[in-house]
């Protein structure tokens, strides 16, 4: 589109210029060879200098700047990536440490619990043993007492009955006869009192 318009404009221009040139004398200064050599000479020198300065001094600098920016950016991205990875591993380590210590704490707690339970059980056992022993001792004593009791009772019965008889009738009775009676009674009712 632009090209078409351009072309039309150029065409128009040539129409205009043609008329103007026809009116004036001289024509196109471009076709006057008077300064051609001068233009060629200066173009060569100036463009040559421009090319040399641009290619040897300025363009390498721009290219280096671009390169350094690129590398700087990529370095930064790399460093960021690296740090992200590092932090991730650290996070993992941290998580591991936490779970480890949690486990440790659990195991310590469990151990302590077991130990305490063991202690308690041991103490309980000891106490139970002691209690059993005491109970045994007491039972033995009771048995002893129970075994000894009929004799003592019969003796007490003989004594009291002899004294009672003495007080009642004022006569002394032979202990052996009383004891015979007591023995007899004991044999009769002993089972009732002692459960033997």
């Amino acid at each position, binding site marked *: 589109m632009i090209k078409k318009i351009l072309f039309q404009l150029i065409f128009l221009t040539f129409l205009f210029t043609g008329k103007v040139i026809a009116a004036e004398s001289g024509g196109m200064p471009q076709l006057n060879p008077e300064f*051609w050599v001068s233009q060629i000479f*200066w173009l060569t020198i100036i463009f040559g200098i421009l090319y040399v300065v641009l290619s040897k001094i300025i363009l390498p600098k721009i290219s280096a700047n671009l390169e350094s920016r690129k590398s700087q*950016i990529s370095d930064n991205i790399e460093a960021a990536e690296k740090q992200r990875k590092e932090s991730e591993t650290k996070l993992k380590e941290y998580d591991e440490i936490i779970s480890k210590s949690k486990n440790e704490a659990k195991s310590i707690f469990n151990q302590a619990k077991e130990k305490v339970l063991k202690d308690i059980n041991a103490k309980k056992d000891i106490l139970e043993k002691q209690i059993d022993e005491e109970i045994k001792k007491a039972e033995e004593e009771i048995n002893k007492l129970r075994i000894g009791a009929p004799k003592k009772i019969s003796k007490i019965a003989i004594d009291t009955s002899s004294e009672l008889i003495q007080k009642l009738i004022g006569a002394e009775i032979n202990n052996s006869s009383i004891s015979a009676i007591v023995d007899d009674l004991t044999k009769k009712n002993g089972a009732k009192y002692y459960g033997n």
Partner: protein
Amino acid sequence: MAANPMTQFEVYRIGPEIKVGAFDISFTNSSLFMVVSSLAILIVFSLGSKKSSLLPNKFQLLAELSYNFVSKMIGDTAGSKARPYFAFIFSLFMFVLFCNMFGMIPYTFTVTSHIIVTFMLAAFIFIGVTIVGFIKHGFGYLKLFVPSGVPAVLLPLIVVIEIISYLSRPISLSVRLFANMMAGHTMMKVFGGFVISLGIVGGWLPLSFSVALTGLEILVAFLQAYVFAILTCIYLNDALNLHH
């Protein structure tokens, strides 16, 4: 009132006449604007490459954008083999662009509106590209004129056409730039003349044309520099990667 729109293209001597043998190599207004354009390029790009910072300043941004632009242009058209010619194409593009752009300032001289300048550039490119082609491919470079897959009957005709089209490259390249520049500037001058001759009553229409044309000419100035550079790349591509 400048009557002749072609007077703007006249070359005149600045300073003394310098002669080497029979040749007149005096410093002219054309030379002056070549110097001005080149200095402007050097100043802009040396400012743009002075110090490297991660966030570029304006000149650095300009320089780096231009660098990437030309680099991409070469990479797209001529491939990676054209890397050694980057500096030349960059200089060429910038030189043509700045000469065109300086020509847009009123009362300046447009270097590229002279056929001899554009023809010299084009001839240099043509000869350089041909030499590169022969160095790269030896006499195999002549295969460029023999496209593959053409019936044997047509071959003589095709070869002749190819050779003519190859030889006309410098002419088309130089005339394209020269004609565009000259036509644009002449047209602007003509419309400017109309503004004066039609006066306060009728001058507004050509004035508005003139304003629009200025915008168009700035576009053309850039476009022609781009076309010049990209055609150079395409010719270089032919020489480097023999496609036919």
